[in-house]
């Protein structure tokens, strides 16, 4: 198979994936406004209740509904976020906030991407770079 053919075979699923991810960010699905986004943080419920939640979750706290509950089996605390009707907060905002908050609580820090970058912008790189610019906003959380 030619190099161009191989590159196309690689590019097509990546582009499609990025397109789906981008669409998910822009257009909330019918169930998206109703379901809750939940992460489990490996710290006891009492510890999380003692102080305001840190980081970007604190920044959106007024625009979402946040529930804390003890996770079973000593796994820590479940943080659940529901986006009310009419809120300006997106699912991507919530996913990023939950992931960053979990890391802040567990580690005290949020891992930053490698830098300075070693890659160069190309037509083939662009969809992947678009996806990774929002690496903590996408996914299934």
């Amino acid at each position, binding site marked *: 198979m030619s190099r161009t053919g191989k590159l196309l075979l690689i590019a097509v699923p990546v582009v499609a994936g990025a397109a789906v*991810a981008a669409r998910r960010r822009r257009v909330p699905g019918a169930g998206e406004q109703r379901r809750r986004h939940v992460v489990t943080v490996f710290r006891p419920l009492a510890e999380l209740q003692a102080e305001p939640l840190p980081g970007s979750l604190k920044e959106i706290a007024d625009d979402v509904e946040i529930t804390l509950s003890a996770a079973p089996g000593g796994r820590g605390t479940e943080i659940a976020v529901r986006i009310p009707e009419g809120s300006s907060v997106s699912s991507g905002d919530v996913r990023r906030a939950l992931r960053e908050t979990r890391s802040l609580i*567990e580690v005290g820090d949020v891992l930053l991407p490698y830098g300075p970058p*070693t890659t160069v912008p190309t037509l083939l790189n662009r969809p992947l770079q678009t996806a990774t610019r929002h690496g903590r906003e996408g996914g299934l959380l």
Partner: protein
Amino acid sequence: MKALQWQGVNKLAVGEVPDPELRNPGDMIVKVGKTVTCGSDLHLLGGYIPFMEKGDVLGHEFLGEVVEVGPDVHKHRVGDRVVVSSFIACGSCWYCDQKLFSLCDNGNTNPAITETLWGHAPGGCFGYSHAMGGNAGSHAEYVRVPFADVGAFAVPDEVSDERALFASDSASTGWMGADLGGVKPGDVVAVWGAGAVGQMAARAAVLLGADRVIVIDRLDNRLQQVEKFIGAETLNYERTDVSGELRERSGGRGPDVCIEAVGMEAHSPGPQFAFDQLKQQLRLQTDRPTAVRDAIHACRKGGSVFVLGVYAGFVDKFPLGALMNKGLTVRGAQMHGQRYIPMLLERMAAGELTTEHLATHVMPLDQAPEGYRIFKEKEDGCVRAVFTP
């Protein structure tokens, strides 16, 4: 600094890239002393894992000297000689608490990709695509090491660079396969693949007390290494009925533990190889699971199969019927290096675990593209190519 960069499918070049910077307080910078090829890099090189960007730096198995530490690094100082786990883990989440470090919740800055693909995201890895965090790899003069207190380990004076290097990934991965595969004294263990990881899995099985350990491959030079350095039996699948031999050598039962150390670009004799390769090239399946199929078929009833080889997506003709009806336990994982490296360094110091023979080709970083060519083609008896930036 100089670094080996992915430039496109099957295209590598050594180029100049910016030096890495401390980005988090727990980071440190390591001056790479030795860094080694891995069979799983070939999946990136060949485009089978389509999350590489032009300019990405490869390499995830390495050792070097600490040259800069962040304010939250307490275990290491400038000048320390360290070996670093290929997977990046925070050490503080529930998965790290369970010693499942490659599943860390906080070690991957791009969790969306793998979460969408696989349901949940594993941790990050050095030099292993943007799906695993987009971290620049170790085939460079310097590398940033996040969570340095968790993932880097001082090398004892009595362990040479040549030996300690392989604790970074190959030996940890191999040990994990035997450990989590449940190898016990008296077991018969079969290992598919006589590369570095397969050899280390076999050595782990020997040290954990297995009664017989049998390594399967097609390359005689690798099988000779197994007999000479690992202390295990061998089978060449191009000249032997592997299934029959394993049955005979295990009293008709089949191996108790089967460890697959081959991965998504497996070879095999017969028509199934052509079938798998065609489907993979047409992207009707992403991976060639030949060795996993064989392991499941050969394993004894109620036995254990551990998948160490790297797979990315979907496979065809997976023997679910055998798995279910024989009551098998199948597990797999990326490596939990932080769990095993301290113990491995002790065993290396004691002479129980030797790895120098794996470094069949040692060369400067400038020659890394040629090193990968030799490694990929398995020319000149190449098992691993080690680069010295």
